[in-house]
């Protein structure tokens, strides 16, 4: 598990999903992204490296989350040459992993960014991630080293997102 987390941190990759046109892909029966608990997620929220992390909490059932997702992916490709890392923490329901999350991840090719948080101690970890977070999603954490900011809000335009991330980047 630690090795796996490290490999994400270092290479920014998860096992690649074979890419095929959607219409011939059989219904996937395994989840290609990692399911982790909060103890396993926490190191990803406290990396001491000089990388700017954008951690977005989302779910396929959350319409505003799905709407803002492209803005995050756009930003990720824009900062490809920067020490920048996008993590999409899915809070999908267990019953939806195969039925909804897996097809979504495949279709959008976002497997490299997605981890699934499965941990019933929400009353603990919501406040541990940020004391001000009420638990509504979408929500986004931006951090680099000790510098942190948390946003319990939806982003509607690329500019709004860039405005909150720019102060963290060495541009």
């Amino acid at each position: 598990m630690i090795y796996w987390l490290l490999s994400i941190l270092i290479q920014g990759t998860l096992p690649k999903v074979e890419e095929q046109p959607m219409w011939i892909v059989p219904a996937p029966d395994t989840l290609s992204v990692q399911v982790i608990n909060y103890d396993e997620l926490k190191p990803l929220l406290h990396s001491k490296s000089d990388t700017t992390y954008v951690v977005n909490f989302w779910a396929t059932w959350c319409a505003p989350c799905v709407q803002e997702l492209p803005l995050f992916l756009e930003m990720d490709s824009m900062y490809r040459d920067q020490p920048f890392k996008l993590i999409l923490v899915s809070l999908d329901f267990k019953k939806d992993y195969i039925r909804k999350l897996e097809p979504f991840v495949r279709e959008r090719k976002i497997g490299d960014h997605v981890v699934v948080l499965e941990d019933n101690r929400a009353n603990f970890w919501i406040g541990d991630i940020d004391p001000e977070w009420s638990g509504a999603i979408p929500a986004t954490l931006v951090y680099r080293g000790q510098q942190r900011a948390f946003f319990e809000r939806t982003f509607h335009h690329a500019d709004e997102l860039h405005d909150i991330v720019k102060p963290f980047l060495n541009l």
Partner: protein
Amino acid sequence: MKSQFGKLLLALFTFTLISAVAPVVDAYKVGEQAADFSLKNVDGNMVSLADFKGVNGYIVVFTCNTCPYAEMYEDRIIALHNKYASQGYPVVAINPNDPSVKPGDDFASMQTRSKEKKFPFKYLFDDGQKVYPAFGATRTPHVFLLDANRYIRYIGAIDDNAQDASLVSVKYLENAIASLKAGNNPDPSETKAIGCTIKVKS
């Protein structure tokens, strides 16, 4: 005298500043008294908390038709009302969403849902979205347990497992009601849970 006046001015200025920048700062906290409201129920009648006679408190739940979390708690909210209304703690459900942002949360859809599920409790529409910000509700479902005098005694989640009622290990809300009935302060008085944002025009 002069310095007192200065302090007052400063306090006024600070208050104005805070309320202008972040209205949510004014939201009710545990121990504060909630103002009553008047909202339209699915039966077309306006409902206020004062309309409930002889109650020991109110289980105010901000919920809606469309949020999967709210849906997962629907049966549990019905069960809560069926269990606690007779003990003087009725459920008062309020839909805080702007239906122009979330079409399934319009008043007609609330009426349909209420009929389909045979809601035994009032299901009110926060038309104009004035009530949920006063409470400081941020998500659906979001529970506020009030005592008979409308003092807020507990804010947060119903229990600790949205996805599976059979796997719940802590019933936060029921424990809070039990504390009130025993004359104690609920502990915890606040809990957090994942939920859907309340839908407002951007």
